[in-house]
């Protein structure tokens, strides 16, 4: 289980998170919901060790992560698909996946499994990543992350700016991962998606986590969405 307890962090002197706590279990999707600038991405970055904590702790299965250097956090089985994808743009699709496979020493089997999730990539293996469409790039970013066979997956707005069919595909893969027992932290603004795939929703507001509710509770109290996002 991934546990974030009471963390405070930010960029230099600018503090962004004030005592945020949350946890996510294997096979569970936790959605972070909040306005732009609330601190959702900062939270994911601090889990990945990109930002030093001022206080609080992050642990995975009882092992402290916040004391580890960034590159070792991924080795614990935590994968991060950042917003805006960030591929190795000059490398081919095959090479991008290979870089993901190599780091944990995964082989052919993992590669096939990942390509089964995204058959479109199989047709594009020799193409440079920068020449892919937006949707394909998102698939590749996820495929690269899944090549490490993660136990925790952090997804930052994976469906942002994609056409509906692509959104459905990404959601489908997210659900598959959940069913395979991966713990997923998802930043998502599409409420339909949140209601269909998330188990719980953690609201983030001004760097704090005022409440975390189950998705079924959220469906019964739509005014919460109004309260935290300003939309109904």
């Amino acid at each position, binding site marked *: 289980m991934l546990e974030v307890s009471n963390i405070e962090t930010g960029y230099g002197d600018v503090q962004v998170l004030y005592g945020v706590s949350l946890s996510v279990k294997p096979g569970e999707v936790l959605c972070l919901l909040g306005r732009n600038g609330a601190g959702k991405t900062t939270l994911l970055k601090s889990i*990945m060790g*990109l930002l030093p904590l001022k206080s609080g702790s992050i642990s995975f299965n009882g092992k402290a992560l916040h004391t580890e250097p960034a590159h070792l956090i991924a080795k614990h089985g935590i994968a991060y698909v950042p917003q805006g994808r960030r591929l*190795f743009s000059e490398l081919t699709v095959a090479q991008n996946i290979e870089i993901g496979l190599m780091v944990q020493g995964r082989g052919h089997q993992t590669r096939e499994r990942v390509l089964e999730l995204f058959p479109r990539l199989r047709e594009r293996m020799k193409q440079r990543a920068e020449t892919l469409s937006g949707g394909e790039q998102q698939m590749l970013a996820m495929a690269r992350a899944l090549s490490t066979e993660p136990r925790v997956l952090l997804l930052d707005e994976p469906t942002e700016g994609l056409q509906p069919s692509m959104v459905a595909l990404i959601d489908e893969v997210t659900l598959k991962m959940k069913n395979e027992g991966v713990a997923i932290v998802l930043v998502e603004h599409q409420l339909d998606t949140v209601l269909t795939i998330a188990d719980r929703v953690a609201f983030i507001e001004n760097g704090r986590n005022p409440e975390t509710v189950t998705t079924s509770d959220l469906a019964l109290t739509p005014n919460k969405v109004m309260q935290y996002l300003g939309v109904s």
Partner: protein
Amino acid sequence: MIEQIRTSLFHLLLIAALAGLYFILPEYHSGVLARVMVLAVYAMGYNLLFGYTGLLSLGHALFFAAGMYGLGMAMQHLDLSSSLGILAGLITALIVSAVIGFLALRTSGVAFMIVTLMFAQAGYLTILWAGEYTRGDEGFVIQQSQRVLSGIDLSDAGNRYFAALVLFAICLFIIGWIVCSGFGKTLVAIRENEERARMLGYNVQRHKWLAVIASGVISGAAGAAYALLFGYVGATFATVQYSIFPLLYVLLGGAGTTIGPLIGTVFMFYLIDFSSELTNAYLLVAGVALILLTLFAPQGLAGELRKRVMPWLP
């Protein structure tokens, strides 16, 4: 695997062509080519760091000079044989690049350029300061009688050509192997997106440090070979100019390609050779040619070749 075989075959063909050229080319040109091959090795070392890892150093002359003085001083003052001299050159380059890499990699981007430039300047000034041993600006000659490797007289033009070719071939295969290996691919990933590579779980800092060392040792090998083959060790080779040369060769030839450094070195050498025959203002001609190349072949000659006709080029 196929990639590795194709790369090796391509490199073998290139080496065979270079060997054949010796018998075709007039003496002047084969002499030039011997020098070009050694400098191309220097550029290949530079390319590993700049072209593949994305780190722009302005202080590689320090590594070239480390190899050169490592060999030169060992042969001059300790009376070591050529082969032990080469070893001394390589070890010196290894130590210097490991230390400089460790320190300079605490910075990145422009700061890395400045820090490497400063270290190289410090190295150059140290050579001048220790003039009693290094003979400062004037440098020293390695006697013809000493320039013998396994019974082969390296002052002979033919032997020198093939010795340069052997060094070039070894380094080309090492680079080809590195580029196709997981390590090489990781370096490219770091060049493309350092933070992403770290997020995937790669120890970026360690990879960059190893890249500086590999790059420094190959550059040092070129420096040692230059001293041994051409018989002269001098502080000129530690100046800023010699840090800029490999950058130019690599940019012109094609950064991030295995043959780019050779193409760039040949091109630069003959460009200056040719233009200095035309006019005293030969740098003007060279400058115009460089501007044209930057405009129309921004990825360098081999880079354009890869982009347009040979996408498999390693």
